[in-house]
């Protein structure tokens, strides 16, 4: 596998870029691996990458039922930030942020991470108090952020409407300068290439149909491409985690919901940051090719259909039009849905399960993309050692029994 550099670019220019090699192999599954990762999204591929790189486990495979990065990794609105309220989540997301900051170099793959800042708007007095509290908590945890006034917002984003006569006037915001966006597909591809280079088998079009167990420990999986044995299995399947848990014989505190997003026709650069609003529910940024990227809310019903209701989109677009009246006549180009795995406390579940050797990393709900590298980092540790990493200990499944919930509904940025 060739290293990407200015020299490889020049070398390939001579042959009109027609001879670039594949970025990863497509091997046949072996009969046995040291570990299996089920789910070839960003989190699963990151887990495989860090298992190989940090823990020396290279005889492993990633099993993906479709194509890599074709689920929520390719369907999110690519926002990266770490301004979470509670210590447990702040530390986890900040670890992720630090990995993001060196990720393109580490992977030798441009994930187009752009720290253009993230605004979380407040529309009433209580919003502003919550924002102040969250910013203070963030700063105590060493996470950048400050509270900005409507005038400061207007200076940075001239198109925004800060009129006091609005139904939901903008009273201020929190701003995290290190937040931003990354190119989601490149994140999946970069981790896949990095893992593959270290010997990890990435097996696509391979759906797991059963989890084999003996005496309360996993022994392997049945797949659409045959039986594959392994003593350690990490499940990173987002919306389908309840389905996999059912195969293994237990239930999860998770419900899967459709979450939608949409993009506009490409327009000239107009928004150079990310704006999120919890109260009116809408978030918006602009991609490098010019589309406005807009995230909607989840539908109230459970769904595995990767599409949601039109009223949900309408609600979000109405909010965007109130914040940015200038966008009223922008046409929308595409709209889609992903299946998000929501937990009762809006925090992920990462760690051991009632079955020995079976580990779950799920429940990221509506905001997992930002955590991709950090999630892979801690989960790789958990799978390799069988014990949780210091950063994911609090996110164990048994917190729903002990009552140690980490309520991030407020700081999750937008209410879902």
């Amino acid at each position, binding site marked *: 596998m060739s290293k990407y550099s200015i020299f490889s670019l020049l070398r390939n220019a001579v042959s009109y870029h027609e001879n670039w090699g594949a970025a990863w192999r497509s091997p046949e599954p072996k009969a046995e691996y040291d570990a299996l990762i089920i789910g070839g999204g960003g989190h699963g591929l990151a887990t495989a990458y860090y298992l190989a790189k940090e823990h020396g486990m290279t005889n492993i495979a990633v099993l993906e039922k479709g194509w890599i990065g074709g689920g929520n990794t390719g369907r999110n609105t690519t926002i990266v930030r770490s301004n979470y309220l509670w210590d447990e989540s702040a530390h986890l997301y900040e670890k992720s942020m630090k990995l993001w900051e060196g990720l393109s170099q580490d992977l030798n793959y441009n994930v187009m991470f752009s720290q253009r800042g993230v605004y979380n708007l407040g529309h009433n007095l209580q919003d502003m108090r919550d924002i102040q509290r969250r910013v203070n908590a963030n700063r105590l945890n060493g996470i950048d952020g400050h509270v900005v006034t409507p005038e400061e917002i207007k200076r940075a984003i001239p198109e925004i409407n800060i009129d006091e006569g609005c139904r939901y006037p903008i009273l201020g915001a929190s701003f995290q300068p290190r937040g931003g966006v990354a190119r989601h597909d490149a994140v999946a591809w970069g981790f896949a290439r990095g893992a593959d280079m270290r010997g990890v088998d990435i097996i696509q079009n391979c759906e797991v149909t059963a989890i084999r167990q003996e005496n309360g420990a996993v022994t392997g999986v049945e797949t659409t491409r045959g039986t594959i044995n392994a003593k350690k299995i990490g499940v990173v399947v987002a919306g*389908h985690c*309840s*389905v996999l848990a*059912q195969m293994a014989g237990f*239930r*999860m*505190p*998770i*419900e*899967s919901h459709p979450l939608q997003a949409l993009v506009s026709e490409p327009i000239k650069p107009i928004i150079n940051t990310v704006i999120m609003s919890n109260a009116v529910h809408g978030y918006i940024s602009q991609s490098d090719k010019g589309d406005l990227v807009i995230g909607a809310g989840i*539908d*109230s*019903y*459970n*769904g*595995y*259909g990767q599409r949601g*209701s*039109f*009223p949900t989109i309408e609600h979000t677009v109405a909010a965007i039009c109130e914040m940015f009246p200038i966008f009223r006549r922008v046409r929308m180009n595409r709209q889609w849905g992903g299946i998000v795995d929501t937990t*009762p406390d809006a925090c992920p579940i990462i760690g051991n399960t009632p079955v020995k050797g079976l580990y779950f990393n799920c429940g990221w709900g509506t905001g997992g993309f930002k955590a991709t590298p950090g999630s892979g980092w801690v989960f790789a540790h958990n799978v390799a050692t069988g014990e949780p990493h210091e950063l994911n200990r609090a996110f164990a499944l048994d917190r*729903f*029994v*002990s*009552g140690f919930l980490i309520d991030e509904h407020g700081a999750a940025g937008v209410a879902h």
Partner: protein
Amino acid sequence: MFLIECPWCGERDETEFNCVGEAHIARPLDTEKLSDEAWADYLFMRSNPKGLHREQWLHAAGCRRYFNAERDTVSYRISGTYRIGETPPSEAKK
């Protein structure tokens, strides 16, 4: 867009309704003696099936009454609605 058949009001637009989660979860009776695991199971654990799901809906902008529905979570097709306490349509057929 869904058209949802409220068992009291008839067919109405989905925007009048809220889905409020899995149906037929009975609150444990002997709560004094309930273990933490059993509480967690009642409060938090959900079956979240891919396929037929029995769930509660609230006709929030209508009669404000709860009812149950049987719906496929992949196609989203609602195969029937029924009042609380009634037998689910798919079982009644058997």
